[in-house]
């Protein structure tokens, strides 16, 4: 067969539109996931029994079910249960937030707990409240240790957005699918889609490497 570059050229505007949506879902989802994950992770590491239990159940619930079931639930079941209308984009972002949040919670918990307890004691012994010890002393050290694992999670979540094809969000994979359905150029289109993902994950890797380089892991 002939690899027809013009097919890609023609599909480019649509694919770019899809890629933009993919980036939007991933960024918004991961930003939210970081907030939820930090809260749940700290609750697991330092919270009282109630907070710890809530965070534990959340993490287990999400880690124990496939993301595709989660987004189906948000998009199809939640409107029936809660009587609200949810558009596909919002459902997609929400799915990434709660899904990434659960995994990030474990990353946050692990890295905070890995910081030597003597540093916590040293902070407390100066007369600081515990939250300030976490914020000024443990947090900055834990953050450095999180970077490799967070990088992994960012890349996984970015690629997970391709599953939202099932609720009809016009992200990159969905765009590829639609173009392919019209012109039947599977080789060109799926190669181009793959390239787009590689560029996005490559950019993420680069950003993380630079961050890691600037912050020595201590």
């Amino acid at each position, binding site marked *: 067969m002939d690899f027809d570059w013009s097919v890609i050229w023609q599909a480019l505007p649509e694919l770019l539109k899809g890629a933009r949506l993919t980036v939007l879902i991933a960024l918004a989802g991961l930003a939210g996931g970081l907030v939820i994950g930090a809260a749940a992770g700290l609750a697991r590491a330092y919270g009282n029994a109630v907070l710890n239990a809530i965070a534990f159940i959340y993490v287990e619930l999400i880690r124990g079910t496939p993301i595709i079931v989660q987004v189906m639930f948000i998009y199809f079941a939640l409107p029936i249960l809660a009587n609200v209308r949810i558009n596909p984009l919002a459902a997609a972002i929400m799915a990434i937030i709660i899904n990434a949040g659960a995994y990030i919670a474990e990353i946050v918990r692990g890295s905070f707990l890995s910081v*030597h307890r*003597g*540093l916590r*004691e*040293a*902070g*407390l*012994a*100066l*007369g*600081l*409240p515990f939250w*300030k010890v976490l914020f*000024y*002393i443990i947090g*900055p*050290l834990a953050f*450095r240790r999180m970077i490799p694992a967070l990088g992994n999670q960012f890349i996984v979540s970015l690629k997970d957005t391709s599953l939202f094809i099932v609720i009809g969000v016009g992200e990159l994979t969905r765009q590829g699918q639609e173009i392919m359905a019209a012109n039947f150029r599977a080789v060109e289109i799926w190669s181009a889609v793959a390239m787009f993902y590689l560029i996005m994950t490559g950019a993420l890797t680069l950003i993380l490497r630079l961050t890691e380089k600037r912050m020595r892991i*201590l």
Partner: protein
Amino acid sequence: MSIVEFRKVTKRFGQVTILDQVDLSIEPGEKVVLIGPSGSGKSTLLRCINALEEINGGDLVVDGISVKSSGRMVRMIRQEAGMVFQQFNLFPQMTALENVAFGPRRVRHEPRQEARKQALEMLAKVGLADRAHHYPSELSGGQQQRVAIARALAVKPKLMLFDEPTSALDPELRHEVLRVMQALAEEGMTMIVVTHEMAFARKVGTRLIFMEGGKIAVDGEPRELLANPQNPRLKEFLQHVA
């Protein structure tokens, strides 16, 4: 008024009693040296004073505040009782200067410039003004421990607690830390020191406490006790450490 007062203090870890109804009063200006075999409760006793360990029975009053009061009051105790750890526990992401300025800045809420100025003074005091911009990983053990002493002093405590400050150091680095501690004692600082440095106890200590099995077994004048120990267990212990 005593600066530290133990009243029948009991501390347990699970089923094990570490401190058994300890009574002890320490007056301002005293330099108390705590010795004893491992597991005798000396470190725990020290860590109860700034509430790093919670007591299970009795009461412990530091500078007029009970360690059993609210979190805010406990933080007041900690600001008055500086602590130096065996493993230094310097904040590795901060330079020596930032470590020392941290207390004035975040605990005493001094402006940044003022905190920095005080930190430099403290570093000069422990002989490390020229190492201000080094990270802990770039300093020797002895230098790290001196920075840790400066960090504790920078909060302007009334009392200093030392938990085996030289045990993690090579022999040739110990004297630089002990010299700083001696200078501090000569300024009149109230000090409670858990250590195995008998020469330090003799030279600097005004009071020697020998602990055994969670109780204070011997309490007296260091020179006298070290020269002529009456308690057979203390005698045996001194033979092992000397």
